[in-house]
């Protein structure tokens, strides 16, 4: 190992300052490096944040989101994560974040708890101690052990920095920054080898298994127990794997995993650009928006985890949680026990039987995310139900279509959006798709773009009736029951959960057992814990399809 450090004098003269760290060729420990193949998925901002929290502790502040929202593919941002890379401005942000995190981690107050050795002289290089630190922290950051060459490489960074900046700890910071901007940390790198049991497929190595499992169930980096199970090889065997899954199921972190999944499936990325016009909908303040999002997650989490209830019932459940501002938005009374200036209280609330605001579709989250800034949209809401809850695809509208009528609210003959959409559907090119979307959305027209309940539009009573696969409904309560009983609702959940965990679409063979499992669950009850348990204990979950186009 050698260092080529240009002199400071040269730098000061105004030519480019260069410090070069020459590192040896890195060979990564793997089961079988000749047949090894790598795929990778970008960490989400939340996974990045959770990883830092779990590796270095709650007190480390991750000040900012470095990664952009991402792209949705096959209905999920998680699947899109397999297509994403990092732009220069994102890497730039991650580097700045890494500097900040590293300086917090190696703050004199924290050092003692994180270091297992101390340098002889804090102003000098100490390769042994630095290597020990890199070895230990690297395991968690890269979710696998570092090879000796890698340890040497990062120790070289530490050494260069320590020499230039005159501090052992600055050296460790440098190595830490290096690890935190490396692809091994910012991406979930999945290493696979040919699967001897199922030719034509590849199976993940134990470390990649641990990551896939941990990000699926907990939305964070594998914890020490799980890494240990990877190291010991336990994860490669059914019994060992199931033991880990059982343990993980018992942790409250399972809620983090559930929240991350539903935030993805229900398109919460739209919150980033949600722009309901508060001039027209003054109750929909920024606080209400944030609380609506939390209401949905709280409701789902309580229903699926605390009550262990059936997913289908989320469609017509009357139980939810409200804050004072949400209760005002929904115009329902809640008992208030809020200290002045105290935290916003969350109050469990159950709607009465005759109340229209039931289930996920009656919540401000869904209603506002799929509205225009200034008006509700039956088409957007209907499309969202089809695409996000039922995994169906609606093609984009054709060109050269005149929509003038649809939102001319001043039209003397067509006072409600139902009338206007009906006219629009007279155009045969539009009718096909609109017939799929509009009826669902029209049942939700009793809620405006901000989720406020209403009974009329332009003075005319809103008709919420329609037909779902041959069955008529008169309002959202009946529609919710029809949707709840539709097998597509649950098959979509199963499919999305699997795709989310693997960040890919299932193969044909996988679709078969997913279908079988779906039918079983419909019989037994579609319960979240059971679903993720079955997915994560299936060997297919830890495979990647063979890609033939690998280049050497």
């Amino acid at each position: 190992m050698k260092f080529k450090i240009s002199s400071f004098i040269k730098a000061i003269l105004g030519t480019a300052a260069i410090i070069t760290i020459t590192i040896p060729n890195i060979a990564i420990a793997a089961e079988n490096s000749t047949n090894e193949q790598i795929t990778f998925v970008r960490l989400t901002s939340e996974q990045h944040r959770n990883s830092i929290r779990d590796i270095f502790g709650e007190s480390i502040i991750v000040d900012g989101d470095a990664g952009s929202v991402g792209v949705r593919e096959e209905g999920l941002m998680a699947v899109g994560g397999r297509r994403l890379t990092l732009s220069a401005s994102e890497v730039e942000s991650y580097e700045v974040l890494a500097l900040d995190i590293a300086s917090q981690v190696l703050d004199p107050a924290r050092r003692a708890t994180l270091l297992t050795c101390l340098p002889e002289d804090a102003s000098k290089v100490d390769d042994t101690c630095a290597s020990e630190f890199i070895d230990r922290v690297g395991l968690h950051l890269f979710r696998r052990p570092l090879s000796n060459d890698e340890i040497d490489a990062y120790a070289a960074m530490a050494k260069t920095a320590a020499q230039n900046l005159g501090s052992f700890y600055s050296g460790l910071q440098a190595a830490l920054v290096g690890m935190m901007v490396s692809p091994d940390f910012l991406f979930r790198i999945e290493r696979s080898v040919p699967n001897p049991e199922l030719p034509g497929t590849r199976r993940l190595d134990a470390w990649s298994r641990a990551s896939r499992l941990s990000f699926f169930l907990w939305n964070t980096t594998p914890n020490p127990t799980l890494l240990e199970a990877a190291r010991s090889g336990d994860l490669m065997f059914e019994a060992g794997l199931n033991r880990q899954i059982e343990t993980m199921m018992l942790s409250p972190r399972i809620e983090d995993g559930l929240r991350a999944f539903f935030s993805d499936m229900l398109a919460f990325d739209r919150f980033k650009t949600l722009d309901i016009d508060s001039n027209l909908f003054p109750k929909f303040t920024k606080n209400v928006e944030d609380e609506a999002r939390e209401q949905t997650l709280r409701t789902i989490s309580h229903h699926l985890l605390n009550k262990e209830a059936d997913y289908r019932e989320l469609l017509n459940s009357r139980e939810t949680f409200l804050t004072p501002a949400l209760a005002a938005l929904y115009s329902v009374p809640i008992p208030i026990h809020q200290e002045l200036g105290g935290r916003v209280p969350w109050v469990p609330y159950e709607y009465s039987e005759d109340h229209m605001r039931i289930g996920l579709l009656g919540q401000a989250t869904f209603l506002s995310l799929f509205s225009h800034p200034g008006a509700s949209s039956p088409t957007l809401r209907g499309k969202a139900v089809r695409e996000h809850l039922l995994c169906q695809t609606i093609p984009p509208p054709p060109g050269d279509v005149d929509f003038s009528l649809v939102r001319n609210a001043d039209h003397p003959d067509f006072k409600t959006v139902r009338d206007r959409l009906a006219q629009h559907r007279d155009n045969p090119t539009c009718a096909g798709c609109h017939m799929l979307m509009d009826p669902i959305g029209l049942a939700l027209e009793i809620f405006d773009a901000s989720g406020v309940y209403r009974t009329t539009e332009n003075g005319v009573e809103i008709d919420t009736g329609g037909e779902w696969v041959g069955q008529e409904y008169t309002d959202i309560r009946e529609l919710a029951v029809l949707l709840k009983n539709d097998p597509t609702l649950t098959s979509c959940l199963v499919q999305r959960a699997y795709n989310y965990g693997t960040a890919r679409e299932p193969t044909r063979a996988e679709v078969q057992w997913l279908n079988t499992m779906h039918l079983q669950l419909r019989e037994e009850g579609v319960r979240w814990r059971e679903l993720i348990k079955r997915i994560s204990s299936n060997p297919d979950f830890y495979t990647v399809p063979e890609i033939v186009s690998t280049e050497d």
Partner: protein
Amino acid sequence: MINKNRKFNRRSLLRGAIHGSAVVMGLPVLESFLNENGTAFADGSELPPCFGSWFFGLGLTPGRWKPEITGSGYELPDHIGTLNPIKDKLNVFSGLQVFLDGKVNQNHISGAQGQMTGIVTKSAADYDESFDAIIDKQFGANVRFRTIEVACDGNASSGWTARGKNGKTPCQISPLELYRRIYGEGFTDPNKAEFTPDPKVMVRQSILSAVTEQRQQLLNSVSVEDRSRLDEYFTSLRDVERKLAFELERPAPLPACSIPNIENSEIGTMVAQVQSTHKQFSTLLAHALACGQTRIFHVTLGNAFSTLRLPGEPSAYHALTHEEPIDPGLGYQPKCKVLGEQCMGFFLDLLMAMDGIQEGEGTLLDRSIVYAFTDHGEARLHSMKNLPVFTAGSGGGRIKTGLHVNAEGDAATRVGFTLQKALGVISDRWGSESNEVTTPFNEILI
């Protein structure tokens, strides 16, 4: 004014040096001084050209923006009359279209995609390298930021640029954040005499450089698709490394460089909010160019389905293009026309910000080319014909200005191809299928 001040500073620094006053660094070598006019470096090399792309959604009111006369000496119709102050530095292109070649019209996407990447894809998720990235490679510029992308509607994914096939480049949405990025840590005023490279930055640069060395190892075991993603990540890493390297070098003095003031404005989609955000970005970008921080930028007013909104109006601009009836008396959609004119006003704001920076006898705009494009010729019908396109600035005398070019139905990619040529890209074609072009608009090339 700025010029004079800077010159004075330089002289006073020289005096200071002669009198042996405490100047931390040696004075910059005289060779790197600008010539007397400030239009070029003293060794005769001129200030390099800059390139910007500027997107406005939903086009303009059909039939109301095309100048009557082709070539020079035309009058700007009322609809785009707001651009009059900059008319002599402007080119107007009419009669351009994007061809779909039988693919689905990805409304509000295909048009802009075709013009920026030369390719119309089946799925909106497939987005190829945009031509500003080609220009960037040609520039190979020694700047802190290879490119800067901004969106004025608070939506980071509103932009139209991409480095490769791995998704569009996210935009910055907050002027304040951009200000911090440019003028925060790592910024060196090119006109300041003192310069001390920061050893911490040297270390940071060395870290990134070492991480980049892992590239080959990872690339050995990835598929072709993943390889391109990984390559793009490593390119990003190298960009940041170069940014740090740039911070370690003494910058050549740029008399026109100054640090702007900006205010923290509310980000949103109301016309006034977008206008204010755009104005702040215009100021920042113009100053960043003048200070040699970047040479390529992209501004998008909003996403493909423009969410620009008038106060109290329930429908956003996009919805209005479809919903607002054509006024039988006027023959157009009145609110849409107003919004289109607002967009032209925003464009003028950017151009004025650039033209307001005097560099010797010319202005920053004069050595730049700004390319303004849109998604539809008639947004009401998602039409891909008669797209309004503008360029402003001559790229330091690389293209002619003050011309109206009537393309008479040609592929809109001809404009992008012409600009690539003007800025030195060597290639004989650009685009694919019917959007492939081989002939630039020679009437504007110099």
